[in-house]
């Protein structure tokens, strides 16, 4: 069971994939025994990180990010991705209630407000 969980976790990178997987289990009417329920529970209990980015990432990038997070945090992290072009570039990140805006949009806004404030561009 542990091995199944580990394999699944390796495959699941994003929350979308997690929900998709869980919905698949539900659609195929796999009999829900205790082990599956435990698996679902474990999967739902995986820590998440919310990323708001300006582009649609490809698989390679998702893998890289997922691996980087696992490496840096020492545990499997599910990516909750939102694509928002207004971010322009970079990312807005929320992890365990902490929120940071590292987007290019914020930098542009800051730059504009500074320039507006001092009347220079």
């Amino acid at each position: 069971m542990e091995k199944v969980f580990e394999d699944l976790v390796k495959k699941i990178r994003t929350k979308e994939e997690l929900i998709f997987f869980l919905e698949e289990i539900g659609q195929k009417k796999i009999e829900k025994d205790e082990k599956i329920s435990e698996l679902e529970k474990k999967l739902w209990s995986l820590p998440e990180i919310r990323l708001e980015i300006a582009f649609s990432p490809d698989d390679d990038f998702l893998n890289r990010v997922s691996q980087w997070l696992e490496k840096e945090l020492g545990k499997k992290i599910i990516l909750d991705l939102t694509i928002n072009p207004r971010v322009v570039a970079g990312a807005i990140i929320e992890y365990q209630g902490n929120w940071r805006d590292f987007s290019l949009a914020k930098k542009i806004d800051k730059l504009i407000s500074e320039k507006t404030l001092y009347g220079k561009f």
Partner: protein
Amino acid sequence: MDFNLIEQNIFFIGFFALAALVVWVCLDIFRLLRKEKKEYSLQKYFAANELFLRISEDFKKQLEKLIGKEIEKNIGEFKNEFQKTSEEIIKSYKSQFESGNQEIQRVLSEFSQQITKETSNLSKFTLDTQNKISEEAKNKILELNQAAEKEFIKIQETNLKVSTQISQSIRETLTKKVQEIEKEIDNYKKERFKEIDRKIYQMLGEVAKKTLGKAIDLSTHEKLVIEALEKAKKEIF
């Protein structure tokens, strides 16, 4: 008219003097009669005491007649004397009045001449005075004119000064107002420019965001996301 009054007065004075004399004579007679009576009572006294001196009735009558004659004589003399004196007095007064009249006429004549002379003098004096007053008035008017002219010049100068001051004050006020308005316009311009700048920058930002978002290639996007994660690692992981 005045002479008549004086004559009347003299007449009344004479009349009262005559009346006083008559009264005095009557009183004298009365006194004499009382004395006789007293002598008669003395006779009585002497008779009582055997020292009475008898007087006959005839003697008494003769004595009374004699006394009466004497009195009448005295009254007549007094009357004549009084009349004479009165006439003399009246005559004297009349002559005095006549001479007084002449004197008055003389005085009047002199007075008339004097009046003519004085009138002439007065006319001359009036003319002189008039000329003098006229001259003085002319001088005064001239002085007043000069003073008025001076005052007018002074007032003009004061007015000029005051008007200059007012003009300067108005100019200063206007300058101040203009400066204030210019300042307000400048502030308004600055505000408006700021607002326009802000809008422009907002638009520029929006444009930049859109264009940059599209302009940035995928690898750069990925690189920027990784950089964001690196920063997050330092701050929140």
